[in-house]
Structure formats: C-alpha cells, structure tokens
C-alpha cells in the first residue's frame, strides 16, 4: 500500500525530533531510512507505525488518513532490533499471535492459524522449528521469526527498525540478501531504518538520507552516491575529502593559485570542494593542480590511503593510490580530482 507522510512534525517535550518531514512511498517499494543517531529516522518509522503521534501533520495509508487510527487498526508489521519475541510462546504461537487476537469472523480457525504459521516458517527457512522457544534459537533465527510474525497479519506496510543491528557481520550480510528475496517474493511495502550505509545502498530501492530531524535527500543508490545534493550527504555517504576553496572568474582557487578546475556556474566567493579519494588523477607538472606534502600513508585493503597537507593552512585531505604506486614514496604529491562538487560556504 502507498504511504504518504505529509508535513509531519514531532516534538518530545518541546524538543523537536522531526521538522516538517514529507515523504511519498510507493506501493511495493523497499525504502531505507539512513542517518546518524539522533537524525530522527526511528522517530519517523514509529510515527508511521502509530507508536508515536505526530505533533503536526498527517500520515496517509493509500487514500485513508491513518493518523486518526489506533495502532491496532493500522495493520502494520513492526520488527524491532532486539526481536521482542514473546518468550513464553513457541515459535508457532509467536507467529500466530496476530491472528489469534482477532475477534469474530476475521479470526481464522486454529487449524488455519497453524497452517499459516508453518507456511511462513517455510518462507523464512525455519521449517521444523514450530515447537521451539525463542530462548532456543540463535539471533538470526529469532529475527526471522520476528519477521514471520509481522508478515502473518498481511500488513499494509512492513516496518523494520535496525533489523540486523544486533547480529554479527556474517549473518547480517546473509539476512540482507534474504530480506531482498522475501521482499521480491511477497511485495510488501517495506520501510527499514539503518545507520549502515552499505546495507541501505545495497538493499533499498530508494534511500532516504536524514540528518538532525530533516530529510536531506531521497534517491536511488546511484543518485545518492553520484549526485549528493548537500555537504552532509557528500560527507556521510562513502569516502570523501573536503577542502575550503574560493571561486573567482569561473575558476576554483586555493589561496592564490587556481587549481585547474573551472566552475563557470558556481557563485563567486568562499566554497567547499568535495571529491572522492579514489576519483583523482596524479599530475607531474603542477600547472593548475592541488599539491601537498605527504603526512601519512596507510595500507587499506587493496589500496593505499595517502594523507596530504595542503597549502599554508595545512588542510588535510585523503587520496587513494594503487598499492605499488611510486608517488606514495615521494614527499610531495600533486593531483586533480576527476569528479568533484562545490558547495558555497554558508
């Protein structure tokens, strides 16, 4: 089902957690809310679920205004980071809980509930564990049960709060792929919160980058990575280096030297230059380039990360070189970013 968040504001005891946030989620989409802690991503998820009430604004499920509905009526599936399974119930009873608490004709028969539970267990690849208690399962298995329990009620939207946050790296990668498969098979509209950008970029159809209670950018993984629209997104997603520069006559300057980058449409004055450390070319003759003295050099996996001090201000930036590149041995390196972006200094 489509979900529309319209101008929602949320305050906790006068402290604003979300400022005027709007977001359209298409039916069947897999959306990631990504941001550092305190960015409001979990608050937004809880508002969609109805676990919090917005201070201002509305949330629509399809055409219906869901902000007037109670949590029970919204029919959302919610999965917590720490599973929140019912400890005293078996796996099958946990999954069937949402069906068992229904009233009157909407409640399926006990037999039907059992059938649904074992069907969902097949889907999450835990067949045969119906009779186990949560204490007898591993973390990854518990999270699968929590997901099956959320899907049992055929939710209008599936909401996952840092679903893999408590698991180790290996299990996390495995479950990530598996969640994508489940999503493709069932087609539930799904929103998940994460602070792990790799997870968000790899898994989601669209990523919502949040910071300090606002949405910074919404887009596909490519859009977010290749065309970040703010200094925050550029710095938060992937590796980046930043340098204070000046724009004059359509040229980018560091101190009193042009660095060979032309920016005819950028506004005049102070700005910050962003580029990716791996997206640079080394130049021999420094004739319009960025030059700096090597301050440190580290081996990181398949590349060498070189830290340079630039100019009299000794601004530090990082660039990435192939492991055996001779430049890493030199005391002075000159380079020019291949792709870059300027943000005027506010």
């Amino acid at each position, binding site marked *: 089902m489509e979900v529309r968040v319209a101008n929602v504001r949320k305050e906790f005891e006068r402290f604003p957690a979300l400022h005027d946030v709007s977001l359209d989620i298409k039916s069947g989409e897999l959306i990631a809310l990504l941001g550092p802690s305190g960015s409001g991503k979990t608050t937004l998820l809880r508002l969609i*679920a*109805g*676990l919090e009430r917005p201070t201002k604004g509305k949330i629509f499920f399809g055409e219906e205004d869901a902000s007037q509905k109670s*949590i*029970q009526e*919204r*029919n*959302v*599936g*919610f999965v*917590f980071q*720490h599973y*929140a399974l*019912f*400890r*005293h*119930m078996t796996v099958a009873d946990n999954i069937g*809980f*949402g069906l068992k*608490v*229904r009233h009157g004709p909407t409640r399926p028969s006990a037999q039907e509930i059992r059938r649904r539970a074992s069907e969902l267990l097949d889907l999450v690849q835990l067949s045969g564990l119906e009779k186990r*208690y*949560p*204490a*007898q399962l591993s973390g990854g298995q518990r999270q699968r049960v929590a997901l099956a*329990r*959320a899907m049992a*009620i055929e939710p209008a939207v599936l909401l996952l709060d840092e679903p893999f946050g408590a698991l180790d790296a290996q299990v996390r990668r495995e479950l990530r792929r598996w969640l994508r498969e489940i999503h493709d098979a069932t087609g539930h509209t799904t929103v998940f919160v994460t602070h792990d950008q790799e997870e968000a970029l790899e898994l989601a159809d669209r990523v919502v980058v949040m910071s300090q209670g606002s949405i910074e950018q919404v887009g596909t993984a490519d859009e977010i990575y290749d065309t970040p629209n703010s200094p925050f997104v550029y710095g938060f997603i992937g590796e980046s280096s930043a340098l204070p520069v000046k724009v004059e006559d359509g040229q980018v300057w560091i101190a009193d030297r042009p660095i060979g980058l032309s920016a005819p449409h950028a506004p005049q004055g102070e700005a910050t230059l962003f580029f990716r450390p791996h997206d640079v070319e080394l130049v021999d003759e420094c004739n319009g380039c960025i030059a700096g003295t090597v301050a440190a050099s580290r081996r990181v996996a398949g590349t060498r990360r070189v830290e340079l001090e630039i100019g009299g201000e000794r601004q530090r930036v990082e660039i990435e070189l192939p492991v055996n590149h001779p430049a890493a041995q030199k005391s002075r390196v000159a380079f020019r970013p291949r792709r870059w972006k300027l943000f005027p200094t506010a």
Partner: protein
Amino acid sequence: MTTAPAKAGWRFRQPSVIPGFGLTLGFSLAYLTLIILIPLSGLIWRSAALGWADFWAIATDRRTINALEISFGTAFFAAAVNVVFGTIVAWVLVRYSFPGRRIVDAMVDLPFALPTAVAGIALTTLYAPNGWLGSLLAPLGIKVAYTPLGIVIALIFIGLPFVVRTVQPIMEEIDKEVEEVAATLGANRFQTIARVLLPGLAPAIVTGFALAFARGVGEYGSVIFIAGNLPYKSEIAPLLIVIRLEEYNYAAATAIAAIMLALSFAMLLVINLVQTWSRKRYG
C-alpha cells in the same frame, strides 16, 4: 577443555576455574545444618518419641485437623488475594510516576517492620463490632473480628510486601517493545496483559504467592488478637501448639509442629519444582 561423556545419574557440576566451590559449599552445608536442620530434626525426634499410635491419635484429632485447616486455608486465601492486589500495587509503582510515589513505595514495607502484635491489635480495634470498620460492616451481617475472615485480613496485611517485592523487580525488566509489538499485531490492552505480560510475570507471582503463603501459615502475633481463638472455629495451628506447651504436653505440641512442617515443606517443594520447570522452558 575435556568433555567427558555425560554419565547417567547424579554428579557434581564441573566447578569453574575460579576457586571457592569447596569452601562455600562446605560453609553452606554446615550453616544450614546448624541453623535449620538440627532444630528441625530435634522437633521430629521429639515427636517420634510419642510412638505411632499416639502420634496418629493427635494428628487425627478433630481439634488438630480443624486448626490445620484454618491455618492453611486462611493462609492460602490471603496469599491468593495478595497475588491479585499486590500485582496491581507493583504495577502502579513500576509504571506510573505520581506525587508521593516514593512514600507509597516505602509504605509497602511497613508490615515487614511493624511488630505483628501491634498490627493484630490495630486490626482488631478497627474490625471489632464497635470499631470504625466493624460498625459499618455489622449492619450488613458481616462479622470480621473473631472469625476466620479476621484471620484472612490479618494475613493479607502481613503478606502484601512479599508479593509486591518479588513481582516489582521482574516487572521493571519488562521490555516495552514486547507490548508495542503486541499492539501492532492487533492485540488490545486486555489481550496484551492477559496473553503477553502476565505469563512473563507468572514465575515471580508464584514465588510471591509461596512466600506470602508460607509466612501466613506460620503467623502468630497478629492473628491471635483478631481471631478470637474459638476451638474448632477460629483457632490456628500455631496457637494450638502454644496451648499444648502451656499444658506441658510437649509431645503433642511437637507432633502438630511436625505435621505443619511436613505440609509446608511439601507445598514449597511443589512450587519450587513448578518454578524450575517453567524456567527451563522459557529461559
């Protein structure tokens, strides 16, 4: 680490590398023997001197049976009442903050601290037919003081802190997320409490029940004032023991005591086994 194949039957659990197992186990056994086992075996030994026929005669005496029935019956009933209301008190103390919460919290412990005789006299004054509450209940035909109902009220007073103090810490640990998940799955408040919260609290509630019950069975000071102590009607077993002692009938006193001991031990053992079973299951 060596993992010897598990043999059938009893064996000591492999002590950890941190020393102290032998010392602390030895100390515990010696201490329990000195404080509990020796006095209790003295009791059994003394009543055994009676001979089986005499013992049986005392045990099946109408007055003894009635006294035991009253003691265990009122203690059971009072503990059951305390389970319901003690759990509600604990819930209010854990979940809500209101002015005076700390005072209410401290008040729960008063029955622990108060000399039981003081409690007994205070309750008797209140519930006597000419007392504040007694005079209100009398026109309705409800007699509290000098009846088993009075005993129940005294035992409710004495047993309340046991339930509240065992349930409270477990309640504080309830994960709010579990309640939130139940709500998103469509459970209303009542269903969440009945199906999700109470089953999780059950072990603590059973423990609180056991403690309140055990305390009620042995309670003497507060009960004798309000009970009226009519033989066959409102005479509790501990009082009957004292009466036998005052008659210098030590054998009969110890015989009744031994029966109480056996009954109490059996009930506490059953409750403990239930606890172990549920803990194994739910972790």
